[in-house]
């Protein structure tokens, strides 16, 4: 009978030791955990835009301090646009968008989403004031203070999203909880450097070209470290949609950084390199998002690492009392 065959095929019979280690047991192949209902354009999109805004605010402050005013203004506008789109995406993704204000109902350090909401509610107005002052030329001292505040909070906006993803039971995210903030920080820096290359004049873009190179190196290193840490779960970073996106991200980020370093002194190659960096950063975020989804939807990635951990400890069930 087919059901019996299914049951037999899906499950190991008893405790036969000759069964290869890769095999695992599950309930009709159904996932153990539930994948988030988050939409990729909203949440992976937010990871990208939040990073672009946050790291962009640092570049904007640096550009302003060193007299690169065109780049500074462009990045302030870019950060304001990105953080506004982020807020829109986050509210849009809620099951009850009208209740978005409940995000500020409590202040809760155990919830990265609560911390992020508070962070955005301070960073957003700062980025807005910085951009408004730069564009209109009014209230320059307030604009300067806002630029500074956005530059201090920006890196936190860029990296906390790594914690937001990792603080879940999703194997491909939680397993890389030490590496994700670095990967997201590097990816955010690459995006912001890309935006500076696209919007700023060539004679102002030396720091952005330097940042692009650093970010590309850090991005590659963090991703490698994450995959090493993840063990068998790293499959989800290498295969399927996530694999395609992350491969594209690696090529685009490397090409953008090399292009910026070699030919960034001229306008057209600088713009092309900047676009490659921006697209590469977006691919990184959508790739990591897709890897998480794939790891949540297959019980293998939940069961096998936990089972291996138990077997290493010499246990049988979660807290078996068999003597």
């Amino acid at each position, binding site marked *: 009978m087919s059901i019996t065959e299914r*049951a037999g095929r899906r499950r190991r019979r008893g405790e036969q030791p000759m069964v290869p280690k890769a095999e695992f047991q599950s309930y009709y192949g159904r996932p153990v955990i539930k994948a988030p209902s988050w939409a990729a354009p909203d949440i992976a999109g937010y990871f990208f835009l939040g990073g672009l805004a946050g790291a962009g605010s*640092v570049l904007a402050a640096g550009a302003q301090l060193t*007299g690169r005013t065109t780049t500074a203004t462009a990045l302030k506008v870019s950060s304001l646009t990105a953080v506004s789109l982020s807020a829109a995406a986050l509210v849009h993704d809620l099951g009850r968008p009208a209740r978005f204000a409940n995000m500020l109902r409590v202040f809760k350090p155990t919830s990265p989403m609560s911390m992020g909401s508070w962070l955005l509610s301070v960073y957003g107005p700062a980025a807005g004031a910085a951009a408004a002052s730069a564009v209109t030329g009014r209230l320059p001292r307030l604009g300067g203070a806002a630029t500074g505040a956005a530059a201090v909070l920006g890196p936190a906006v860029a990296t906390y999203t*790594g914690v937001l993803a990792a603080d879940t039971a999703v194997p491909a995210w939680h397993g890389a909880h030490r590496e994700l903030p670095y990967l997201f920080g590097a990816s955010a820096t690459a995006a912001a450097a890309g935006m500076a290359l696209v919007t700023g004049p060539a*004679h102002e873009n030396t*720091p952005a070209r330097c940042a692009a190179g650093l970010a590309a190196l850090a991005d590659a290193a963090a991703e490698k470290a994450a995959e090493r840490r993840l063990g068998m779960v790293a499959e989800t970073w290498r295969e399927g949609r996530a694999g395609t996106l992350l491969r594209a991200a690696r090529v685009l980020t490397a090409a953008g950084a090399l292009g910026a370093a070699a030919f960034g002194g001229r306008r057209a190659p600088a713009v092309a390199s900047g676009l490659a960096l921006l697209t590469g950063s977006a691919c990184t975020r959508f790739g990591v998002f897709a890897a998480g989804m794939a790891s949540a939807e297959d019980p293998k990635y939940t069961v096998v690492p936990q089972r291996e951990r138990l077997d290493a400890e010499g246990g049988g*069930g979660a807290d078996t009392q068999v003597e």
Partner: protein
Amino acid sequence: MSEERVGFFTDTTVCIGCKACEVACKEWNAIPEDGLSLSAMSYDNTQALGASTWRHVAFIEQPKPEGRTQLPLADEESGDGEMRWLMSSDVCKHCTHAACLDVCPTGSLFRTEFGTVVVQEDICNGCGYCVPACPYGVIEQRPHDGRAFKCTLCYDRLGAGQEPACAKACPTESIQFGPLDELRERAALRVDQLHEAGTTEARLYGADPDNGVGGDGAFFLLLDRPEVYGLPPDPVVTTRDLPTMWKHAGVAALSVLGGLAACFAVSGRPGTGRGRR
């Protein structure tokens, strides 16, 4: 906790798969219908816990383990002994360290005076963070509603001194409700009894206060590995690693700041020639 902590002990060895718990839960809590599909998963057409399924009976047909004494209960047609049924009514574990509660940004999820974990539906804004945070895949957002729902351990009934609807409806006392300490003692005795009867594969799941979630408010006596029932073998509350994550996020943020500052430092001012070709 102003009251004694209460919970469920689900003894799957006496579950007969009647699904009275599923029905009683739906009825009492007025949970909407959530699809009538045939799953081809034995008698399990409910398939999983979710926003509109707060009790779920799993049905497993498997070859009987060799060389063990049969349970009298499971041995009615003794002799042909090829297959055995495993049936288990799953439910929210009401963890001591509940990831859903920890990550909820609105404070909608809270710990009750009975030590259970409940969603306040008038506060939940449907952010969905609790859904991937749960290591058991219990809580879920209801489509077309958007908010997250799960077992409340019949918070309204507890307040009135009643036991939860599922435990009340269970005809075999597979689902036992009571003070958690008392249930743990009872469960340990039951395991000893089963081991003496030769059912050596009997094991408790979620009863240990030292497990990855600090002990489950709803725990189980299983006859096979947890993953066979669709349960994670060694779940750990994700927020256990949150201090490490915040630390790394802080270092990463400072690296972004420092890295970019260094880029500006080596590049100098535009037009000065330094750092430009």
